[in-house]
């Protein structure tokens, strides 16, 4: 097994075992999205109008949940030191850890979204569009979040700082993710325009996130 495959398998194993973040994220997502119809009442038109925004907000918060342990756990138990003496470039290790995080928290959200969407009166093409925006957009949340996770690695209560650092950076993803999903529900903008921007944000995050996070980790090691 190559070094990077080893990291991917290890992180996914840890995430799905006891104390891992995989189940936590999707449960949080389901609970938050379920509370909304109870709070607003059974106004189907209103739910349909705000449904994509609610699901996107819930997805954003859920993917932050497991992020703060992403590097902090490796830093606390000394694994990060050994990773730095490995021959795999730190940028790629960070990228692979991001991929593992997305596979264990992002993908379950995408799978749960159409079911939760039913409660918010999102059906058929609307639900499909929402799922599509989440598939494309949640990696951007992970990769932007990597930067915050790396910056807060040495802090004991890093989770709060992480949220403060990362949430403002995710605003563009939120805007275009919700805009694309809404475009499919209500119009009048074409679905393609905001969706393309969302794709671009994910690709930019994919490039910038690992490099920035690796640089932050190297700095923290001092």
């Amino acid at each position, binding site marked *: *097994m*190559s*070094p990077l*495959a*080893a*990291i991917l*398998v*290890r992180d996914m*194993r*840890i995430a799905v*075992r*006891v*104390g*891992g973040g995989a189940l936590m994220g999707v449960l949080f997502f389901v609970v938050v999205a379920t509370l909304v119809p109870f709070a607003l009442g059974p106004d189907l038109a209103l739910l349909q109008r705000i449904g994509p925004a609610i699901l996107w907000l819930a997805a954003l918060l859920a993917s932050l949940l497991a992020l703060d342990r992403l590097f902090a756990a490796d830093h*606390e*138990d*000394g*694994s990060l*030191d*050994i*990773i*730095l*003496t*490995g*021959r*795999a470039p730190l940028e790629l290790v960070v990228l692979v850890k991001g991929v593992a995080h997305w596979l264990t928290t992002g993908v379950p959200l995408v799978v749960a979204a159409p079911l939760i969407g039913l409660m918010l009166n999102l059906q058929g093409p609307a639900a499909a569009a929402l799922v599509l925006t989440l598939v494309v957009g949640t990696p951007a949340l992970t990769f932007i979040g990597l930067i915050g996770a790396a910056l807060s690695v040495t802090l004991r209560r890093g989770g709060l700082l992480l949220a403060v650092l990362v949430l403002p950076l995710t605003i563009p993803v939120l805007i275009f993710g919700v805009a694309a999903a809404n475009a499919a529900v209500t119009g009048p903008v074409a679905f393609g325009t905001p969706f393309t921007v969302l794709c671009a944000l994910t690709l930019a995050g994919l490039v910038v996130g690992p490099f920035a996070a690796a640089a932050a980790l190297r700095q923290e*090691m*001092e």
Partner: protein
Amino acid sequence: MRLSAIDLACRRGGRSVFEGVNFSVSAGESLTVSGRNGAGKSSLLRMVGGLLRLAGGRIVLEGGDPELTIGEQAHYLGHQDALKPSLSVGENLRFWSAFLGAASAGIGESLAAVGLDTLADLPAAYLSAGQRRRLSLARLLTVKRPIWLLDEPASSLDAAAQQRLSELMRAHLAGGGLILAATHGAIGLDGARELRLDQPAIALPEEAEAL
């Protein structure tokens, strides 16, 4: 192979920890780094491993692989054991050997060498401190690297395990490796040279030292 440090200096949190440290270790030799708490033993090892920036001086490795950094040719055994409690003993070791680039063939032998072969399927969360240390040591056996940087390697090991550790270190030296070990006590290496870091960690005024 020869590892030398020239005029090494270390600063932590704006304070000078040590300055002007020189040493040289050749293949087959070991150097123990001693000194009181805060003298910079761990920092010295981390500097050699490339985990801490040098405040001055340089570290040179002659006869190593020029494509790799010193850290990439070294094993760093720090205070923490780098184990994941939710993974089993075998999974922990298999991960590190795969990550550090070894075939997974030697896993069983390495576990046997540190006396953990019967616990391979146990989650690492259930290991005692000494067992965790031994599992951490097994990593050094599965992946062959010439330089061993050991920070208090014998901590929490019982007498038999310490004996076993010195046998493993002697075998590593006999195979042409070199060892840098930070330690308070003897670690059972005959002929190990000693580097004392005795500069005070914080320069105290003279009257304060007299108290």
